[in-house]
């Protein structure tokens, strides 16, 4: 598995911390998921004067890597300010950079994203940009200093899975050395398997677990899926073909009849 800014993660499961019925259920879900990274949103859960510190303490007690994010930021300035706040509070250089460009789909503003990524990278941050599967944008993000790319599978919270398999596969092929994470749009464990089978290094999800009837059980299901997809990719899967290829030997049969 590729390293994320020099950090080797135990697995490719990044799990969000928003929208759970209670912190106790959140904590339970993390335990059963074995997720190696917790994302935490600062914008909506902060207010002022470190107001969310009790909740943040709960997140820090999960004992996993923390990836603060700039969820809900619509401008470069907001995102940069939030990133600075996150670095101070969590003592990490990691920042999941979100600059939202469109309210209905929560699609990233890729122009603001590259600008904010450059500013933050120059300032010593290790940026995890939430982007689309656009290869040109991805290239500009890498130029801006990003050593991780996080293309969406589908719009945030939509649960639609991987909407553009071709695009995600092309991204893997174009950036063989960059850790790639499918971020957003994952609704079912099967979507996570698919992403890992494509050779992605991790998946990042939140709603699919938090809003499930039994979040902890769903978290465990995702953990199994991520392991399955990762193992399958490492095992060099067969390629699809157009004709049948019987697994029983045809030797001795008149197969050319």
């Amino acid at each position, binding site marked *: 598995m590729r390293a994320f800014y020099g950090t080797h993660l135990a697995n490719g499961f990044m799990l969000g911390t928003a929208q759970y019925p*209670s912190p106790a*259920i959140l904590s339970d879900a993390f335990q059963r998921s074995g997720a190696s990274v917790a994302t935490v949103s600062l914008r909506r859960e902060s207010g002022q004067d470190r107001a969310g510190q009790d909740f943040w303490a709960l997140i820090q007690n999960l004992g996993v890597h923390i990836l603060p994010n700039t969820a809900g930021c619509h401008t470069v300035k907001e995102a940069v300010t939030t990133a600075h706040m996150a670095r101070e509070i969590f003592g990490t250089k990691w920042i999941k950079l979100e600059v939202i460009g469109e309210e209905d789909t929560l699609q990233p503003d890729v122009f603001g994203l590259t600008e904010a990524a450059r500013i933050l990278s120059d300032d010593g941050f290790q940026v995890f940009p939430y982007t689309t599967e656009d290869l040109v944008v991805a290239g500009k993000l890498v130029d801006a200093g990003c050593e991780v790319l996080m293309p969406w599978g589908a719009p945030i919270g939509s649960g639609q899975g991987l909407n553009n398999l071709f695009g995600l596969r092309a991204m893997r092929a174009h950036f063989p050395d960059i850790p790639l994470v499918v971020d957003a749009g994952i609704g079912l464990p099967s979507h996570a398997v698919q992403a890992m089978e494509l050779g992605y290094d991790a998946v990042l999800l939140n709603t699919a677990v938090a*809003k499930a009837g039994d979040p902890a059980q769903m978290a465990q299901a995702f953990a199994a899926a991520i392991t399955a997809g990762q193992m399958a990719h490492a095992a060099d899967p067969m390629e699809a073909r157009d004709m049948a290829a019987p697994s029983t030997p045809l030797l001795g049969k008149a197969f050319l009849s």
Partner: protein
Amino acid sequence: MFDVTVIGGGVAGLCVARNLIDRGARVTLYDRAGAPGPHGCSWWAGGMLAPYCEGESAEEPVIRLGQEAADWWQAKTKTVHHCGSLVISPTRDHADLRRFGRRTSAFQEVGAGEIAQLEPDLAGRFSKGLYFPTEAHLAPRAALTNLRQSLVEAGVSFVTQDADPMTHATQGITVDCRGFAAKDTLTDLRAVKGEMLILSCPDISLNRPIRLLHPRIPIYIVPRGNGIFMLGATMIEGLGSHHITARSVLEMLSAAYALNPAFGEAEILETGVDNRPAFANNQPRIRRSGNLIQANGLYRHGFLLAPALARMVAEVIFDSTTPEVMDETAT
């Protein structure tokens, strides 16, 4: 007969005092701010007595214990409206309505015609909904005021001053109902900020609380009568400032406008912000250390769960039992 000191005069403290009086105790209640008012978070509550709807995100004890609330409040304050609750969503969010239905019980699925009958001012605007006929609501400020008045009449001494639970506990049984102010001794208590609006909109009449589902901005609106509505409520982890944010106002008003565009003409009478005290499982807890009993963590379920919590506090004191929401270890 023996004496009990209750500290904190919000929904928890008043309900505890009522239950203790009813079981024969002599009660003195301390509150640093006096009578219920904008300083306490129950002043800003929605007042929905909706245990089944809460089942969408709350765990089983909340649903079960919440069923005591409507009868209790009606018996003690005569402020309860037994009109049920209605849950609706715009057509594009019907998936959220189906999900809500899977997580809850005791409802009827209703269509456009039934919605129009229940709430004429929503006629033609929503095609599907869930109607919870056994649920109820009340006006929190009237309920708190009536409850306090009944306690005055029953002989409770009200003292307007700050009081230290530990000090009082050296002299006798003391119940700490200070909500988030008890954070100094209940270190695992956290604040969940809520924001709400009070609108005046005489053009619209609603009979019962309406929950409008939305994947990002779910809101509820509770009619207070005379064209007054309470609109709530955000759920934000962490202590808030005393002021509502522009974003929250925008979101809540947009949702109200989606419910009925006539809300665009409403006047905003009040905005409110409070910090609801919650434990990690978002359920109330009772803890005891000698004479000191702490009852806290009502979260967003103040009016819904305070009667059950108060009943259990009385059981701890009078029956020496260990009720289900009581933690074994003293803090």
